[in-house]
C-alpha cells in the first residue's frame, strides 16, 4: 500500500490539492451566494421570498451527481448557442461545470443554515436595534450578521466536511480530484488497495479541516 502511495505521489498530491481547493472554493462562493438567499428566506415576503424558496428547493431537491450531469453534459447539447453567447469556454470545461454544480448545491443548503440562524435571533435584539436607532444596514452588518454567523458556524463546518466528500462525484465527470486520480491509478495497477489510499487521504483532509474549524469556533468566546 505504501508503494501505491509513493509510486504515484505526484498524482495523489495533485488529487488532494484539487479536492481541497475545489471543496473550499465552492463552500466559500456558496456562502456568498447563500447569504442574500438566506436573508430573504428569513426576512422577506412576496415574490422575492418565493424565488428564494424555489432556488433552495430546486438545488436541494436534486442529487448532486444529477446536477453535475445536467450542467456538464446537459448544457453541452447547446454548445452552438453557448458559443454564440461566448460562454462555451466555461461549459466545455469539466472543472468549471463541476464547480458550478457544487456551488449551486451547497448554496442551497447554506441558505437554509443562514435562514435558521437568522430566525433564532431573539426579538429583543431587534428591539434593541430599534431603540438605539440603528439604520437597517448597520443593524444587519454590525449586529444580525455577526450573531447569525457565530450561530451558523457549527452547521456550516458540517456542510464544509460534507462537501469535501461530495467532491468525489467530480471524478465521474472526468475531473482528476482524489477520486479521479484513484480511478486512473487503479486502472493501471488493478490493485484495490488504491481505494484505501484514497480513503485515508479523505480522512486526513477531513480531520485537518475539523481541527481548523475547532480553532475558529474557539475564537468566538463571547458566545459562552
Amino acid at each position, binding site marked *: 500500500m505504501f508503494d501505491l502511495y509513493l509510486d504515484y505521489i505526484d498524482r495523489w498530491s495533485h488529487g488532494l490539492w484539487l479536492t481541497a481547493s475545489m471543496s473550499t472554493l465552492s463552500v466559500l462562493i456558496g456562502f456568498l451566494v447563500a447569504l442574500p438567499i438566506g436573508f430573504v428566506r428569513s426576512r422577506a415576503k412576496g415574490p422575492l421570498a418565493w424565488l428564494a424558496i424555489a432556488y433552495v428547493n430546486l438545488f436541494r431537491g436534486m442529487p448532486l451527481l444529477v446536477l453535475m450531469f445536467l450542467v456538464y453534459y446537459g448544457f453541452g447539447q447547446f454548445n452552438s448557442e453557448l458559443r454564440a453567447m461566448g460562454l462555451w469556454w466555461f461549459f466545455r470545461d469539466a472543472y468549471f461545470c463541476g464547480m458550478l454544480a457544487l456551488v449551486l448545491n451547497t448554496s442551497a443548503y447554506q441558505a437554509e443554515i443562514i435562514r435558521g440562524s437568522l430566525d433564532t435571533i431573539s426579538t*429583543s*435584539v431587534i*428591539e*434593541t436595534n*430599534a*431603540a*438605539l*436607532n*440603528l*439604520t437597517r444596514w*448597520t443593524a444587519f452588518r*454590525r*449586529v444580525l450578521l*455577526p*450573531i447569525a454567523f*457565530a450561530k451558523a458556524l457549527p452547521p456550516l463546518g458540517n456542510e464544509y466536511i460534507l462537501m469535501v466528500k461530495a467532491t468525489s462525484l467530480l471524478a465521474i465527470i472526468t475531473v482528476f480530484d482524489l477520486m479521479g486520480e484513484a480511478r486512473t491509478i487503479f486502472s493501471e495497477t488493478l490493485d484495490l488497495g488504491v481505494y484505501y489510499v484514497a480513503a485515508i487521504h479523505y480522512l486526513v483532509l477531513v480531520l485537518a479541516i475539523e481541527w481548523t474549524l475547532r480553532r475558529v469556533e474557539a475564537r*468566538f*468566546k*463571547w*458566545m*459562552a
Partner: protein
Amino acid sequence: MVSPPAISFEKLNKYYGKFHVLKDIDLEVAKGERIVVCGPSGSGKSTLIRCINRLETHQSGRLIVDQCEMNNTPSTVRRIRDRVGMCFQHFNLYPHLTALENCTLSLIYTRKMPPKEAKQRAMEYLARVRMDGFAQKYPSQLSGGQQQRVAIARSLCIQPEVMLFDEPTSALDPESISEVLDVMADLAIGGMTMICVTHEMGFARKVADRVVFMDAGEIVEIADPETFFTSPSHERSARFLQQIINH
C-alpha cells in the same frame, strides 16, 4: 414661562388584536421629572413606556415626545428615538461586542461620530456608571448588574432627553439591584427625565417625584410617593401595596 412637557399622552389607546391593553391614557411628564410606574403584571405598564420610543404602536390618541408628535413616519420615529434612551429588563447588550463597542456602535454608525470621539464619550459614561475598568470585556464576562450598568451607559451615550427603564432590576440578584439603583439615583440627581417601570418601592420613595399606578390597562392613581405609600386613595392600589409589602 412653563416649559413644555417632556412627554404627554392624550387619550392614548392601544389594542393587541381585540385585547384592550392601554385605555384612555392621560399623562404629562415634565422635563426633569422622575416617574415610577408600578402595577400588577399584565397591567400595561411596560407597554406604556414602550409606546414612547415606538417599540409598540398605539391605535388612537396622541403621544408627544419632546414637542414632537409620534406618528407613522419613519423620520419622526427616528427623531424621537434619537432623544429617548431605554434600558431593558434583560439588559440586551450585544453579545458579540465589548462593553465599549456596545456603547460606541450607534454613535459611530447612526450618528456618524468619529470613532475616537465616540470612544472618548463612551468611556466618560462608562466611568459614570463605574464600569470604565470593564470596557474591553464581553457581556458574557460580566455579572447581571454590571451588564445593566453598561446598558445604562450605552443609552446615556446618545445624550437622551428622556430615559426609559423597563423593570431594570427584575432579573438581578439583591446585590446587583442596589448597584443599579445607585446608578439610577445618580442619574435622577443629575436632572434626567426618567420613567421607570419597577417594583423597587424603596427606590420609588427615595427618587420618584410621582408614582403612577396602573391596573388592567388604566392609570388608576397618580400621586407623590409619600401619599401613595401611606394613604393610597384607591382600593386597587391599596391592595397592590398590601401584596408587595407582605410578600
